[in-house]
């Protein structure tokens, strides 16, 4: 190929060709054979400019993973080992952690937050594989605030688009009851084996869940209250009954949660309401003596629930009839549940005679239904919670809100604004001067 524009210095001809035979490219004149120009000693195509060579392109090897990512992975493994989860969960949390770490919302956060992230990955993997762990446990491991860890958990779940199963209190009860050191190293009357304790605690939590004590509340105090009551009722001797919740937690070497005492009261209230329906019980039940009856109440809880709800319904019936007449538009709503309830009622009447355990088998679903159905009594404004037999405590003890007076609310937004009103918001010159002086005085 001849190059235009070049002429051989030797013979002047323009017949110059590229000679690629040798390792260096040369421009050679065809006629006289002299070399017009040689290629550069270096391979220019690779080095654009001799000085601009970055370290990573020449000497550095493969990009090493970030140190913090490795440390984080170790954290994850450490937490998995402490919690003694199985291999699958460990691998899953590793995957989540690597994914989350690289994501833009987590790559630049503080190291502490990355630690939280590690804990949250473990948490979400445990949830997905039905291994019960609470956020409280994870925040304990991380020595952090529950709310902060919760915030990181929520962010992570959204960012990674994971559909994690929601929290299920029953999974956690058994794990928690293992913590209570109540089987060995305690006095004979106070010792209890874990299996019985857990079984009864589960029944108590089920009852509490049916009667609105559990929904919306922190789960751990509920579990604590259930375990305390189940421990007391398994052998209701005077030693156990005398022990308060505080002392029980000290005995079992568990940190007491403040709301647990309130949960104990609420559960005892529920038990009293149910215990009232026991036909063979002569005495009136108070929160003090109800613990002895807990075993019977739990054994027949569904039947007792039905009886209690029906008794309450019958008590309310004249009231609701009156309200039916008073407000016809409400009629469809009130009559709506009645068709659903009448077959249940007929069932109840047939099963009424004995409180045999056979009752419970087919009835739990209906009892749940009934609990849901009988609780509705839509009321125009007054506290419907006070009328229902079982209602969420926040409704029963409703806070009295300051009712904001509506005043004039036909504002159009384009009204005239009076000057005097605006002037009332502006300081007079004298006021402004005094204020300025006072500020100066403070600043000195």
């Amino acid at each position, binding site marked *: 190929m001849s190059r235009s524009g070049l002429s051989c210095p030797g013979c002047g001809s323009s017949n110059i060709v590229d000679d690629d035979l040798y390792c260096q490219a040369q421009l050679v004149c065809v006629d006289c054979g002299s070399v017009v120009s040689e290629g550069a000693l270096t391979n220019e195509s690779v080095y654009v400019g001799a000085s601009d060579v970055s370290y990573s392109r020449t000497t550095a090897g493969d990009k090493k993973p970030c140190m913090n990512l490795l440390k984080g992975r170790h954290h994850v493994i450490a937490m998995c080992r402490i919690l003694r989860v199985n291999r699958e969960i460990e691998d899953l949390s590793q995957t989540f952690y690597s994914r989350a770490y690289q994501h833009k919302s987590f790559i630049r956060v503080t190291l502490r937050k990355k630690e939280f992230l590690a804990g949250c990955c473990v948490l979400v993997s445990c949830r997905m594989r039905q291994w019960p762990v*609470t*956020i*409280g446990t994870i925040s304990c491991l991380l020595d952090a605030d*529950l*709310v902060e860890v*919760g915030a990181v958990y*929520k962010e992570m*779940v959204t960012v990674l688009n994971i*559909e994690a*199963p*929601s*929290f*299920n209190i029953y999974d956690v009860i058994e794990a928690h009851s293992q913590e209570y050191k109540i089987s060995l190293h305690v006095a004979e009357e106070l010792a209890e084996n874990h299996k019985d304790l857990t079984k009864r605690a589960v029944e108590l939590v089920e009852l509490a*869940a049916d009667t*609105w004590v559990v*929904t*919306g*509340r*922190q*789960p*751990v105090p509920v579990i604590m209250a259930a375990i305390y009551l189940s421990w007391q009722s398994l052998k209701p001797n005077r030693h156990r009954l005398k022990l308060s919740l505080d002392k029980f937690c000290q005995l079992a070497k568990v940190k007491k949660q403040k709301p647990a005492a309130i949960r104990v009261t609420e559960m005892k209230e529920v038990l009293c309401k149910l215990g009232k329906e026991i036909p063979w019980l002569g005495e009136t039940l108070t929160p003090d003596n109800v613990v002895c009856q807990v075993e019977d109440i739990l054994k027949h809880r569904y039947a007792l629930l039905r009886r209690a709800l029906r008794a309450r319904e019958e008590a309310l019936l004249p009231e609701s009839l009156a309200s039916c007449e008073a407000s*016809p*538009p409400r*009629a*469809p709503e009130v009559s709506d*549940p009645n068709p*659903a309830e009448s077959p249940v009622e007929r069932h109840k009447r047939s099963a009424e005679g004995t409180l045999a355990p056979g009752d419970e088998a087919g009835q739990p679903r209906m009892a*749940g*239904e009934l609990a*849901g*159905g009988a*609780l*509705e009594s*839509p*009321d125009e404004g007054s506290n*419907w*919670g006070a009328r229902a037999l079982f*209602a*969420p405590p*926040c*409704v029963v003890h*409703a806070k009295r809100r300051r009712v904001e007076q509506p005043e004039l*609310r036909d*504002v*159009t*937004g*384009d*009204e005239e*604004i009076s000057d005097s*009103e*605006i*002037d*009332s*918001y*502006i*300081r007079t010159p004298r*006021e*402004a001067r005094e*204020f*300025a002086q006072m500020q100066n005085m403070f600043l000195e």
Partner: protein
Amino acid sequence: MDESALERYFDDSIANESDFLLGEELDLQSPPPPGKGPAPSRGVQVAEELDLSFLPDELSSRDEQSRHDNTADSQIVPLDVSQDSGISGDYNSQDATAESEQGPSMSGPGTGVSPFYPMTPMTPMTPMTPVTEKSGIIPQLQNIVSTVNLGCPLDLKFIALQARNAEYNPKRFAAVIMRIREPRTTTLIFSSGKMVCTGAKSEDQSRLAARKYARVVQKLGFPARFMDFKIQNMVASCDVCFPIRLEGLVLTHRQFSSYEPELFPGLIYRMVKPRIVLLIFVSGKVVLTGAKEREEIYEAFENIYPILRGFRKQ
């Protein structure tokens, strides 16, 4: 079942014009009546293949609720759609007659025996009046957040000095906090001239309050204008008056709800259409937020109410 297929058919006939109708009718009329089995299934099937997502939600929710007794609806008069209840009443009666005619034939529309003309809908339907069992509960607006641009840079120190109702602490936050008594609102005024007004209970009140703040700034000597007033967020709350099993709700609506009792006692429901976040509590109180228009709030509540009611009976 057949009436919902009927209603869906109506939706289709309104939404898609003649081609579809003709094809449908011919399709369904050609097989003889004994094919009652295939006809409704085909009618239903074709309707289900159609993408109805562009229709307003009331129509799709209407289907599942039309099974309830609708006659009570005409008596329940919601407060601000009073003139529309007449139409819904009309539609009810027409629907009922249509139903009774369709009842014996037990098939989708378009079979030879029915006197129905699927081409023309019975009444001119306005999509905004859903024929549902209305909840009868109106969410009350609690807070409106709006922004406005005053259009001129402001001297915050001067404003804090001259105005009685202003606070300014530059070390803590770079804006003046000003309050007025009527409507009871608070505003943040930034040195760029932009302003955020919060605390009003209605859109008009928010606008009036923002104008008052602009007037105050004007009186202080700045050439303030009132540009780009926009409502950014609306918060409303209401009470359904029955307890709600949040654990159950999170199981059935997993992709929308998040319930962590350890973190927050309420369930956070992120509705997709309209894009509203609802906080649902066990007491039955519901807080709706994230709306830019009042209608979004009402729509969101009407969407969630049947779900919550469904829960209560379980």
